[in-house]
């Protein structure tokens, strides 16, 4: 799109030419030699380790995708959705893999490649297992979650189920980040902290005796929200990205990663581009 400087070469020329989807990449990315992805620290998707390197589902996935695309990914940590969205629009970032739910409104400005659904999990203190352990207990309880996150819309579906069962709806307490929700459970501000299934697994792994969680089932409206990687419309990255996803679905990398992180039940059969608006 912008003027090209003749002497700037892609960073990894050799790997690039070998990769099957390299040619489909837009010139700007080829030129930059890297795909810049905005991300907040959000275990287990992205965890910043002691030394500063980032581990988690997102980096694993990116490694697989980058084999197809021939350019490496770079995660730029940034802590506000506002800054990440405008950052994409201003060309600072090429993509953002929350993963966040796709909606028609969001697809107006951004291309969404859906690659998983969501299983929201509700974390509670192990010492209250008797009281909170079964799915009905959540109806009428206090549930902390990140404002505007998938959890909020998932809880709305859970409440529909509660209503169908003749139970009271749960009360949503919107907080700033997932740590605030866990703290709220600890200080008895909330009974449950709603979070993604993978995050719940990660939390329990860090402190096995303290936390337990229940998982929202399909009956309770799980699996309806489709989570996607977002790219600004018009940067030409959506098509090759979709192709790369298709490739790793095919070669089994996708399944390996989902299984490794214990979230195979959130997997989808095939990636889709802009499912909300394309039909």
């Amino acid at each position, binding site marked *: 799109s912008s003027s090209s400087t003749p002497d700037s070469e892609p960073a990894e020329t050799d790997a690039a030419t070998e990769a099957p989807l390299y040619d489909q990449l837009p010139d700007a990315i080829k030129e930059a030699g890297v795909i810049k992805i905005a991300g907040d620290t959000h275990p287990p998707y992205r965890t910043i380790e002691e030394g500063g390197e980032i581990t988690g589902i997102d980096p694993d996935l990116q490694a697989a995708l980058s084999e197809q695309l021939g350019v490496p990914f770079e995660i730029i940590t940034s802590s506000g*959705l*506002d800054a990440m*969205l*405008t950052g994409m*629009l201003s060309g600072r970032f090429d993509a953002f893999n929350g993963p966040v739910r796709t*909606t028609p*409104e*969001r697809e*107006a*400005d*951004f291309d969404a490649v859906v690659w998983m659904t969501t299983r929201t999990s509700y974390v509670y203190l192990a010492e209250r297992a008797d009281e909170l352990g079964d799915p009905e207990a959540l109806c009428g309880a206090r549930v*902390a979650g990140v*404002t*505007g996150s998938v959890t909020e819309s998932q809880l709305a579906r859970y409440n529909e189920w509660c209503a169908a069962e003749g139970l009271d709806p749960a009360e949503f*307490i*919107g*907080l*700033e980040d997932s740590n*605030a929700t866990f*703290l*709220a459970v*600890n*200080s*008895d*501000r909330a009974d449950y902290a709603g979070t993604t299934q993978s995050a719940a697994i990660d939390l329990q792994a860090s402190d096995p005796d303290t936390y337990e969680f229940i998982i929202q089932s399909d009956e309770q409206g799980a699996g309806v929200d489709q989570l996607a990687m977002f790219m600004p419309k018009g940067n030409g990255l959506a098509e090759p990205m979709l192709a790369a996803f298709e490739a790793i679905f095919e070669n089994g990398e996708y399944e390996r990663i989902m299984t490794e992180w214990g979230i195979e039940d959130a997997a989808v059969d095939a990636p889709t581009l802009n499912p909300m608006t394309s039909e």
Partner: protein
Amino acid sequence: MTDLTTQPVRNPSADRSIDAARARRRIHPWRVVVGILLALVTVQIAVFLVTNERFDWPVVGEYLFNPSVLMGLGMSIMLTIVGMVLGSLLGTALAAGQLAEFAPLRWACIVFVGVFRGVPPLVQLIFWYNLAYLLPRLAVGVPFGPELFSWPTNDLITPLTAAIIGLSLHEAAYMAEIIRAGILSVDSGQRDAAAAMGFSRWHSFTRVVLPQAMRVIIPPTGSQVIALLKGTSLVSVIAMGDLLHSVQVIYNRTYEVVPMLLVAVIWYLVVVTALTLVQRRVERHFSKGMSRAAVARRVVERTEAVA
């Protein structure tokens, strides 16, 4: 006179045509340049604001009076007022305490101000909101002895009380410093006179010292109010919605970040402008009797003329 010397006549008193009243205006080149530059910049900013589609003015218009935005604004203003009132009251007490004769009290106040000036309000809010994590029940009783009453912390500390406690304590620490400077600016003779007339300390402090300190206290307090108004956005970490949060909720849904931030900015500017006007009036009120009006006027005028 003209024939007294061979030099050209330099005494120009005859030349009555030279009169400052008929002087032309001088064109100051740098003023012209600066004026033109400022005009151009203003026009460019206006053009940029109006024509740049990414500001999405229709969306701004649509959400400017959105009920949840107005509620957020109301919450911001309410928290600012409550935080400021409580903060000022506590700050006044802390300022007096920092100047007290009784050393343990003085030290307690100094430490209190130091700590709450240093701890970020965000951390404070998290702390108060989750106090129950550290202290599940709040008890009134004999220290290290039996409890008389106790309540579950979470019953006492709702998100609103946590926000009010956190913001008020933070403001109190800043106001304490501002008020202390004000008190020190009042001539010690005023306190002597009040004491000599047998005024109680309370009477002397509230009727003599504080009203005179106000002149020095008000201007930084104005800045403090504005900072608090903007600082209320922190309460979103504890499940409360202020102005900024209310627009964030909207753009988290719609992803229209820029126009929604504009909505917030517009409201902030409206409130700040109103506050500034109020501050000017309050300042005038408290300068009554502190100087002869004329003197004050002159100082300002000259300053403007010379600077």
